[in-house]
């Protein structure tokens, strides 16, 4: 944690091979392991939750139903009636990110969404899907998305590149938002955790600041839970908004 008196805040994001020799031989890291765990947990929530098929749902069934209805409502509300066909995609995306974020709050677990490679891959998939959907529905008319309405033709050579840049910048803004939020939270946790150890070991007069750091860390864990859920939600909402734009153009 605090190697040689300095705080190694970024060491926690290092990828290590998981599952012993088998994992090492195929580069199966702890991030991949956590992705599998997130997938299994999502599947388990729905499968175990819906198994009783009770008229009055129990706790787990309530959770599963609420999850389904929340995302379903989000899809149909934001995309329109066409949103139903994108529901499985948005649902999978939301729960993959949500469980990825939440797993990272537990000690000894790894947050795979704190790697920009992961979030950028997810975002590239979203933007690619949005573009493919738009082209399939609208064909060449899709290009009119980059032409703002009611603008004199003289300005179009200037405005069309700006619109295209704005479209492409979704790739970065969506991925960096998730990645930065998760990484910043875990760096803060690490820094204050290191404070506790360093101050606690420094002597009796530093016990009070050490306790304060511990209190901050407790508050940060709660804040992390909020950020984890909120960022997964924001990612899903923005995916829905982009899909709406793709389906309806503007």
């Amino acid at each position, binding site marked *: 944690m605090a190697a040689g008196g300095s705080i190694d805040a970024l060491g926690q994001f290092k990828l290590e091979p998981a599952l012993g020799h088998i994992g090492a031989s195929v580069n199966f890291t702890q991030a991949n392991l956590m992705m599998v765990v997130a997938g299994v947990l999502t599947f388990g929530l729905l499968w175990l939750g819906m198994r009783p098929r009770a008229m009055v749902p129990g706790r787990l069934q309530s959770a599963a139903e609420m999850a389904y209805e929340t995302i379903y409502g989000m899809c149909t509300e934001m995309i329109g009636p066409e949103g139903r066909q994108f529901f499985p995609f948005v649902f999978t995306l939301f729960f993959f990110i949500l469980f990825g974020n939440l797993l990272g709050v537990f000690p000894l677990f790894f947050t795979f969404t704190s790697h920009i490679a992961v979030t950028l891959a997810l975002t590239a998939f979203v933007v690619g899907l949005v573009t493919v959907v738009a082209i399939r529905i609208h064909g060449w008319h899709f290009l009119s998305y980059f032409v703002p309405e009611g603008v004199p033709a003289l300005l179009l050579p200037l405005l069309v590149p700006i*619109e295209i*840049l*704005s479209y*492409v910048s979704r790739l*970065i*803004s969506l991925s960096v938002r998730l990645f930065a939020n998760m990484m910043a939270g875990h760096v803060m946790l690490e820094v204050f955790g290191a404070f506790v150890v360093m101050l606690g070991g420094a002597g009796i007069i530093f016990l009070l600041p050490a306790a304060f750091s511990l209190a901050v860390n407790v508050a940060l864990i709660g804040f992390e839970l909020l950020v984890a859920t909120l960022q997964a939600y924001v990612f899903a909402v923005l995916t829905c908004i982009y899909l709406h734009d793709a389906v*309806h153009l503007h």
Partner: protein
Amino acid sequence: MSEESGEDGPSSPSFEERLKAARGRQGLDAPPPLSARDTGDMGGMSPWGIGLRVGVELVSALVVAVAIGYGLDRLFGTKPILIAVFVLLGGAAGVLNVWRLFAPRPTRGPKVQDGGR
């Protein structure tokens, strides 16, 4: 209240409208203008969240523009020109992103409703 009762008076022709208003008063219908789409999903966001979001939008457009400008410069061998042009375009695109974030969306409401019917 007085405004609403005026609408609900016997002069109001449409039963649908009165039903909708009544349902809205009772909170039975989720009010459409409050959906995250129209508020630019800023509803539950803290000032920190908004600030971070604006920063990310501004910078991301610039990053993409610089990357494209640099790549095109390497491609055509016009070293400083295109990157300079794209920095300006990227800044403009960033401002456009932020504008989209905060702008009221007057054309959106009816369009969404049309799609819903």
